[in-house]
């Protein structure tokens, strides 16, 4: 299938200053919280262990010392009530950041998140704000297993009234957290444990990366790769494997999953005709399914399409490395699937692993 070349489209990027400083994802999250707490006395940070010596991988380090135990506190092991309390604080005008070191724990708080936080503005006729941020981390590798690995963001995309953001770079980690804190609606802020190791340019001053705008992270012509959260990293690596075999992949980071910038994705697919969406979650009824469905609705009859979702294997996450490796997509399997789509046939190709494109992982033993 030929690759139509349409007009050159400016690559969308949030503005960046000339002088760039390098920061880790962890420090970007910490700095965003620090700046927002300094800017607005209503911002409070709490959750299990936010004030302990490990300070949630360092993302809350120093906040207790700077802002005191009333604005930064560890909580009882009560996800349900603490989420409800966070909503009550938000109704009263505070701006809580509720931290969960694993996203799996949100399942203990779903009543408050979906029955109350997401619905309050509507069911109270627009008379209340719920400016709540829920930070939740997805774990991966070295034995995270069934209950420390889940990406549940699709469940939240399914329900109106709560926004969902999944930043993949330190720059977006800082800008999205600031935007989430300033938002008058509840925001689920999805972090991936492996992204915490990343470093990248982060301006010192406060800035926001606002809801509803995706970013083209690598321009290309032959197919569109959408990588969600950590899978953005794998997609950028996959693009390099593909480049080596003459396939030009455009990579898009949706950043915000709800509201979703389907325009940027659909415009890309209208040019490339091929779309692979890679999620750090199961594919059934998830973010990948939603993006593929919206693109198909938009472009059916407009042009010929090849579409694919990738994500967790449809099973429970195992701990043993040989099985766990098979559970996740990676740059090589994404590249292989993408090439099949471009050539419109099963190529039987899996690129040999390149040392410069290896991922990071947890290192044991804990």
């Amino acid at each position, binding site marked *: 299938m030929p690759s139509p070349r349409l007009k050159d489209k400016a690559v969308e990027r949030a503005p960046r200053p000339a002088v760039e400083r390098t920061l880790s994802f962890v420090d970007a999250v910490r700095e965003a919280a620090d700046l927002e707490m300094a800017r607005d006395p209503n911002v409070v940070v709490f959750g299990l262990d936010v004030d302990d010596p490990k300070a949630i991988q360092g993302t809350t380090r120093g906040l207790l010392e700077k802002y005191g135990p009333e604005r930064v506190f560890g909580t009882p092991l009560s996800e349900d*009530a603490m989420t409800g309390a966070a909503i009550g604080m938000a109704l009263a005008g505070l701006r809580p950041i509720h931290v969960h070191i694993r996203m799996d724990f949100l399942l203990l708080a779903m*009543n408050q998140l979906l029955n109350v936080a997401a619905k309050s*503005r*509507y069911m109270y*006729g627009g008379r*209340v704000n719920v400016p709540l941020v829920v930070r939740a981390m997805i774990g991966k590798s070295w034995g995270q297993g069934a209950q420390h690995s889940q990406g549940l963001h699709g469940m939240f995309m399914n329900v109106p009234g709560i926004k969902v953001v999944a930043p993949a770079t330190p720059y977006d980690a800082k800008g999205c957290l600031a935007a989430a804190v300033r938002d008058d609606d509840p925001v689920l802020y999805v972090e991936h444990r492996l992204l915490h190791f990343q470093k990248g340019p982060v301006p010192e001053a406060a800035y926001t990366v606002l809801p509803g705008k995706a970013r083209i992270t690598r321009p290309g012509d032959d197919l569109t790769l959408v990588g969600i959260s950590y899978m953005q990293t794998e997609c950028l690596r996959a693009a390099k494997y593909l480049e080596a075999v003459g396939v030009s992949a455009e990579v898009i980071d949706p950043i915000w999953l709800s509201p979703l910038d389907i325009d940027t994705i659909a415009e890309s697919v209208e040019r490339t005709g091929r779309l692979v969406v890679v999620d750090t979650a199961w594919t059934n009824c998830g973010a990948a399914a939603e993006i593929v469905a919206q693109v198909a609705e938009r472009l059916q009859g407009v042009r010929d399409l090849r579409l694919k979702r990738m994500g967790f294997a449809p099973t429970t996450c195992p701990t043993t490395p040989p099985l766990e490796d098979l559970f996740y997509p990676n740059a090589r399997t994404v590249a292989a699937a993408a090439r099949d789509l471009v050539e419109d046939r099963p190529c039987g190709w899996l690129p040999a692993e390149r040392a410069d494109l290896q991922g990071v992982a947890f290192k044991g033993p804990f």
Partner: protein
Amino acid sequence: MNARLYRALYRVRRLEEEVARVYATDKIKSPVHLSIGQEAVSVGVCDALRPSDVVFGTYRGHALYLAKGGDLNAMVAELYGKATGCTKGKGGSMHLIDPEAGVMGMSAVVGTTIANAAGYAYAFKARRSDAVVASFFGDGASEEGVFAETLNFAVLKQLPVLFVCENNGYAIHTPQARRQGKADIRGRAEAYGLPAERLDGNDVVGLRQRTAEVVAGIRAGDGPHFFEVTTYRWREHVGPGGDYQLGYRPLAECEPWVAADPVRKLAAALPAAEREDIEAEIDREVAAAFAFAEDSPYPDAAELMTDIYKEDADAFAAAQG
């Protein structure tokens, strides 16, 4: 004080009797969970609160909404699903709210608002306000995990919150003894470290007095407090009528509660002329509220898609000029 309490009690009773009467016409577009028989709990507690204090309640929240000062017209219009309702017809009877009166919300999911109340109290404390939050819920809610979790947190942080468990003995049709291995809600609250007491839900004057004492202590920094208030739901769980024909409770069980009805007892304690003046005024107010609801328009179709996010409300407001 008796006249004021009677006025508040009669107002809830009269309003709900009118809701029950109108319900058969299907003009009310929301399931109703009537408070009839339980009014004194909300009235007694709220009479001791200030306008700046906040309450959270349940789907059986008409009495609480009115007792705390919620707008009557907006409530009836809400039951009718009209644009002038307190949530523009979007929440219905189970999600009444009036932020200006300190009525901060009610939930159809049992136990849910207990935690919201504690969070609101945390904000009061963080701001060095002397306002308090009163959290109303039923005996069924005391079985939810959020009840235990919230009580622990409220004690841990010494929050300015008064928990009011309206124990009417039933969760829908199931009696407390068939749901709780040890039917002692007050005792469970005490085990979490709360000062907790059991009070008579028909004694509106006593409830008012005890609340005033307790709330003064909470304002002074005494931390949270717990009331288990025994009361009785005269009518069916949801809907306007009785349900004794279902057989899950005998009519005889209700009779002592009706005999001790605080509305009737307080009425008898007032001079006849004063009582009649109060009743006439309330009757007019209730009639006017139903007329207001009848005359109000339904919301525009565009309202379906507003108030989902802040931006929708902003865009709608801009479009309305």
